[in-house]
């Protein structure tokens, strides 16, 4: 729990600032869209949150290993304990993002409904549909984060010549999630498989990806900082 709690503490401030900026941009964006083209036919929140929920965890997956592993090891934490805490942190962070994405969609849908500003194809939020929304967004976010970890693990452990070709297998979780559990700004989901099998395959790939990260990093040398 020490690693998990400490990672959250380290990212707390930037998370609050980031989501506060998202709220402000959402408000401004809705006004601009309304003035320019009338009632929105898509969820502007899902455009923004849908990107944030992918790229924030992707970057976090890259940075947490490249920046924080050495700092934690230097403070008496083993690689195994760090990676265990990172797994908890990744799960909690992506769950938080998915909750905020769904909650933001609910708020946006409610506000637009109150002012009768929902376009014809706007994805109206419903409590019954919320679990499905969350259930698509969460595994997608987790897949992006594991991809970030996999990509950076290759570069961290080996040299760039080995790291570059490892980007391709590292992107497998991302590619699987994009094709099986996608949820877009029109509320559309991918239908290549029924949700149950799609979720099972995506989670299996995510777990396998994290186990690969563990295998690469469990005995990696702790790299020196230049200078």
């Amino acid at each position, binding site marked *: 729990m020490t690693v998990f709690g*400490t990672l959250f503490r380290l990212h707390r401030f930037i998370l609050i600032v980031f989501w506060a900026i998202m709220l402000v941009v959402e408000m401004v964006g809705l006004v601009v869209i309304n003035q320019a083209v009338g009632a929105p036919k898509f969820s502007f929140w899902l455009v923004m949150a849908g990107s944030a929920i992918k790229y924030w965890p992707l970057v976090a997956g890259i940075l947490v290993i490249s920046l924080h592993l050495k*700092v934690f090891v*230097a403070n*008496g934490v083993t690689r195994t304990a760090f990676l265990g805490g990172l797994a908890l942190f990744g799960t909690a962070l992506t769950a938080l993002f998915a909750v905020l994405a769904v909650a933001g969609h609910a708020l946006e849908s409610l506000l637009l409904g109150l002012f009768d500003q929902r376009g014809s194809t706007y994805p109206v939020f419903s409590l019954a549909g919320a679990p499905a929304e969350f259930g698509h967004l969460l595994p997608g976010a987790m897949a992006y984060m594991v991809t970030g970890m996999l990509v950076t693990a290759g570069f961290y452990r080996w040299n760039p010549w080995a790291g570059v070709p490892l980007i391709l297998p590292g992107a497998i979780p991302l590619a699987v999630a994009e094709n099986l559990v996608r949820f877009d700004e029109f509320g559309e989901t991918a239908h290549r498989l029924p949700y149950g099998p799609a979720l099972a395959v995506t989670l299996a790939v995510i777990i396998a990806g994290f186990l690969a990260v563990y295998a690469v990093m469990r005995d990696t040398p702790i790299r020196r900082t230049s200078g």
Partner: protein
Amino acid sequence: MSIEIRGLTVRYGGTVAVDNVDLDLESGKIYGLLGRNGSGKTSLLSAIASYRKPYAGVVRIDGAEAFENPRVARRTCFIRDTLDLSDSDRLRAALDLAARLRPTWDGAYAAHLIEVFDLDPRKRVSALSRGQRSAFGVVLGLAARTPLTILDESYLGMDAVARTLFYRELLADYLEHPRTIILSTHLIEEVADLFERVVIMDRGRVIVHDETDALRGRGVTVTGPFAAVTDFVAGHPILGEQTLGDVRAVTLDGRFGPDEIARGEAAGLSFGPIGIQDLFVHLTSQPLEASR
């Protein structure tokens, strides 16, 4: 914490940095680790601190294998010359993190050291000079109060005042909180008085591991008129020498008996202990087998 190293080998591809080293370090002493650049000091320390998995062999600390051992990791602090921090971190954040993760962290002592080295906790790591970075490493290393503290060339870039403060704080804190401290350095004479034992590495091997006083007693420095010294030392292996005008000081490997010393003193010569640095230079500047 006692350290037992058996058959330790550290490799970087085809380069052998530490070559089949056996070494025992008792707990509660200050060790000086000496060696030329590329002799394997940092690699040895990295293996002791589990920063690098040995290619072969084992490091045991208090009898337990060290690598990825949570109990050992919590009780070990390794400060490298390049700090293991993010450049964008403020010093205050690094201190907070250490306080959160280190069960033995002494915040009050860290604050004292910050004051001693005149560091500004609001500054970012990237804004520190080379000497300030080293000083901050010393703060993190000493305030962690871990039973095993390893400082790898922690004086780099420090001016004479900062180095003196560092040695003073290290010794004072060690006396108050005895623990195992390993200090690697090139400034041998400057810190030799701190060391209880000295380990000298050369080309990946440990060539000397002995009490500092025993090393000093291993040779002798003969000082006196040039001609008298030259006559007296003829036939003895010379480790080093200095000449100033007609005065010559020669460092020799070996000892003299009371009769020889009396004869030398009658010729106007004086005898003193060997400088650790002279011994170091001698041992590490000849073929490996000859130095062992």
